């Protein structure tokens, strides 16, 4: 039985920017970016397009990121907004399908992407299900640009500045698109008080 090796102090982990920079001359280093963010990117994509499509799009996102790594902003320490931006661009090829599944969800109450959501909503109460259906309807009614901003902020948990970087638009544009999207959501929820519903 071997004795474990003595503990070695941790080396300070490299920033994403440093790894991407190194990957320009050592391509295999880009695998570390994948290991850090594959789960997060897949989760974002799965919430928007479903797990099956997310599998393919996650792979495509990292391939596109690898090929485009020479254009990575060296000032951006965190690569996640950049990756979300690429993923969002790839999702645009499926914008029509995404909108259609939100519509179907709003119409039937059954989430065509995440099967368990319907059961969860039903278990949480009729009002909760109604809220989710209204939100799905509102998502279907947004423009693709408004939906991208809204879901990068809410499901991607990006700041306004990060969202602006991800979409390559000014921060002011992010704010205005988000405001419009929020107004549509509030209108959709008009007949329901979310704070009351969350207690059902």
């Amino acid at each position, binding site marked *: 039985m071997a004795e474990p090796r003595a503990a070695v102090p941790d080396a300070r982990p490299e920033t994403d920017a440093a790894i991407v920079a190194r990957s320009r001359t050592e391509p295999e280093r880009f695998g570390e970016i994948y290991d850090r963010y594959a789960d997060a990117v897949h989760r974002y994509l799965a919430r928007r397009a479903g797990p099956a499509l997310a599998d393919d799009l996650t792979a495509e996102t990292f391939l596109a990121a690898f090929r485009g790594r020479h254009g990575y902003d060296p000032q951006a320490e965190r690569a996640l907004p950049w990756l979300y931006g690429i993923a969002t661009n790839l999702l645009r090829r499926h914008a029509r399908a995404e909108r259609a599944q939100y519509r179907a969800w709003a119409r039937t109450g059954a989430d065509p992407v995440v099967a368990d959501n319907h059961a969860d909503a039903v278990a949480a109460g009729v009002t909760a299900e109604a809220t989710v259906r209204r939100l799905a309807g509102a998502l279907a009614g947004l423009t693709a640009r408004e939906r991208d901003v809204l879901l990068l902020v809410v499901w991607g948990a990006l700041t306004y500045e990060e969202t602006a970087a991800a979409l390559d638009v000014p921060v002011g544009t992010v704010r205005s698109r988000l405001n419009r999207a929020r107004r549509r*959501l509030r209108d959709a929820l008009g007949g329901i008080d979310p704070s009351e519903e969350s207690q059902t």
Partner: protein
Amino acid sequence: MNELDELARVRAGVAPMSAHARNAARLRLADAMAGEGPRILHRPVERRRLAIGLAFGVTLTATAAGALVLPRPGTDRPSGAAGSESGSEQVPRPDQYVFTETRNSSPTPGPDYHVWSWMAADGTRPGRVRSVKESPSCRPASSGSPAAPSGAAAGASTKAGWSRDGCSWEDELPVYDPKAGLASAPYTVLAQLPTDPSLLAALQADPSIRVSTSKAPGAGGPVVTREAALWEVLRSLAGRLPAAQRVALFRALSAMRGVSIHSGIADAIGRKGVGFGVDDERLGRVVLIFDQNGLRYLGEAILDHDGRTQYSGTLLRTVVVDRIGQLPS
């Protein structure tokens, strides 16, 4: 609670990325990484590791060094191999190749992969690996079976990368570089490893073991324990170990601290054996499966938190052949 909070709850329970999907995407990226950039010293090493990882599971990277010891597991330990007999196992000549056939599969939707590899027994010549996707779109209508390599032509081409139809992938296994460590070592190097309990010390000292005990700031990078890093190496080499070293490994794992024992676990084709598991934050519980006596390595399974198999790498056969592309009858 405002409308954004409400939206944040929507689809919050979406299923996480499966190990199968993560592996498949990683391999596509690996193919791109291997095919670009200047041919620097360690690139062939990485390519060799990645290609062998394709044949025997996943090859991952970590960023920092450190050490971590897991707590002592339960006491349900197998008795160990009955002996060190190698039976009728073939021992390759240095000029021959070790052929392995593996099937990587997952119960989740998505293609399985059938992998053939030919590795030079002494590592002085390039080898070859070929992976074929098993999906309805990749099955020849006439046979209904995956596009298996046929005869001497299989794996003998010099082309690397994906086929035009996206159904198969080939790459060269570069000549062995000792700097790569044991994960990509050929048979003649593995045969020099100890056949007693000191085998584990030799494996743990391998330079290819890379441990990370802390996350990158704000990045959520995975923690890679010493055990998980060791398992990554074992996953690559277990299917190619000579019999004496394989039995020694089985005995060592049976007594190793921090390892879970899975008695009676079955591989993807129903062969029952003994599994040795370690939790890997990147993948799940990675279980190496041997037959009951430790004489044969059957493959690996990656389990989720509920003990369900989410990925299987099944070693179908390991055979000595004379040339790349030759398939055993």
